[in-house]
């Protein structure tokens, strides 16, 4: 999954929700890029620099350049500390960055940018960002630019979300079940069919990714060692089991309506005059014995 996300370059859209947050995955991917030797630029709008760098090792932190749009994005403090040009200026400045080697740009988050910039401007700038590798006048080897954008799905209508989705080469939608997070990856490559994959994963405290193979539903939940499973067949007031003798008697029993050969013989042999049963009838005083056969008028 990691190779397919950071391989071809272009925009990777991470769509998260309130229940399944995506910043941990963004940080895991940033760490991965930094460990591969790439320079990483982070446009931080939603969390402070300290909070974003928290959990990274020193190697990752040294490769990370944090553009702080968190402290004073709208220049309310008027101290001149704010980055020039506001959010759009910083984004455009990232477009023109040159230098050797591949570059990863993490946008935390696209939702913040979408709320503060017009959608069309943002899309044009994103397009320019992720297309840096195809400048026609550049004779140097193609540098791949990976753009990772975090998008909070619930904050925007379907229009902007679909627009950004169409710009993205890869879309990762975060969800999960129970305690386990999953990523639904949709990969679009030119001249290929889009590929889907669902990957279950955990993010470890040092922001490395632990990929799980199958869905957690396949693995049985481990029983809680403190509570012993209770056997429901103990302490019953009735007998659930049969003894050996009872089993034999049960097996040898013929069912009343089963037509076995013995029954057939018994039926056939009855006509041989063996008086097997007699009926003794004592008529009461009130009995009306009519000797007429009520079926006489039937023409059989």
């Amino acid at each position, binding site marked *: 999954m990691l190779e397919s996300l950071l391989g071809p370059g272009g925009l990777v859209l991470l769509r998260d929700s309130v229940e399944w*947050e995506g910043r941990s995955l963004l940080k895991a991917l940033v760490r991965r890029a930094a460990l591969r030797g790439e320079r990483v630029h982070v446009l931080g709008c939603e*969390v402070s620099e300290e909070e974003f760098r928290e*959990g990274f090792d020193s190697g990752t932190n040294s490769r990370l350049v944090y553009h702080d749009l968190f*402290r004073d994005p709208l220049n*309310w403090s008027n101290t001149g500390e704010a980055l020039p040009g506001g959010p759009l200026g910083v984004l455009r400045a990232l477009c023109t960055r040159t230098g050797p080697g591949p570059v990863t740009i993490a946008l935390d988050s696209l939702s913040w940018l979408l*709320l503060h910039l017009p959608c069309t401007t943002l899309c044009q700038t994103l397009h320019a960002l992720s297309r840096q590798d195809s400048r026609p006048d550049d004779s140097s080897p193609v540098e791949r630019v990976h753009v990772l954008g975090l998008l*909070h799905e619930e904050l925007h209508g379907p229009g902007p979300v679909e627009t950004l989705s169409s710009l993205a080469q890869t879309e990762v939608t975060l969800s999960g079940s129970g*305690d386990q997070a999953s990523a639904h990856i949709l990969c679009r490559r030119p001249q290929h069919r889009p590929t889907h994959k669902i990957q279950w994963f955990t993010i470890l405290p040092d922001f490395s990714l632990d990929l799980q193979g199958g869905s957690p539903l396949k693995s049985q939940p481990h029983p809680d060692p403190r509570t012993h499973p209770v056997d429901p067949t103990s302490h019953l007031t009735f007998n659930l089991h049969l003894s050996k003798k009872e089993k034999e008697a049960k097996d040898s029993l013929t069912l009343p309506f089963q037509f076995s050969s013995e029954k057939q013989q018994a039926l056939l042999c009855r006509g041989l005059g063996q008086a097997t049963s007699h009926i003794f009838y004592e008529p009461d005083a009130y009995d009306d014995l009519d000797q007429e056969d009520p079926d006489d008028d039937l023409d059989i």
Partner: protein
Amino acid sequence: MFPELNDLLNASPDRAEPGKLTLLCDAETDGSFLVHHFLSFYLKANCKVCFVALVQSFSHYNIVGQKLGVSLTTARERGQLVFLEGLRSAVDIFFRAEGKAHPLQFLREAKAASLQPLYEFVREALEPVDQGEAAWKRPVLLVDDLSVLLSLGVGVVAVLDFIHYCRACVCCRLQGNIVALVHDSGDAEDEESDVLLNGLSHQSHLVLRAEGLATGFCRDVHGQLRVLWRTPSPPAQRGRSLTFQYKIQDKSVSFFAKGLSPAVL
């Protein structure tokens, strides 16, 4: 403050965690008891509190606070509590001379663009004073409530920006806490309210959601409280979520697990 709620949240006045944004949300019920809880909690924890109260008057909060064991009048006189009474000061805007922007300046603007004056008010209120007694622990901002700002014509982005700046100042720089109440109207057509609620949920560490019971009004169970612990950044497991039902009494609120109200057992 309600001791049972403290137990549920595993919090106590002497160990308030710094730098947290707590979001209070109510849907089809009145979640203001949570505001009273946090107000008395932080006053008892000896924190400096800036309370932006846009919904009720000072005396209302004072009366409820006295039932919970804090006196807002005393706290205000001591300088522990900075109280912005929205209902009263909204009228002041029209009768004062031009000068520094009033915190509720947006009421005078035809198109309310930003809440920067309100942010400046909060910042000045909670900025630590060097020469005075540094007796207060961390600063706390309490807002009751943010949905009123939407109703007054402020845009969603402006409210989110206001909380953003408050977070940068109060949570990150001053290591304080923010508690804000938002209403969930449940109306599918009210997109601004949804965006505000979701946008704030993404930024918060703790979300307390008070809902009415799905089956309607009940005398013994007043509602349901869902607690969601969110950690926006560290890769902990998905936030823990617990649900309780509650009953509001005169001076306290009792919490119990779903279906286990004492009236039913």
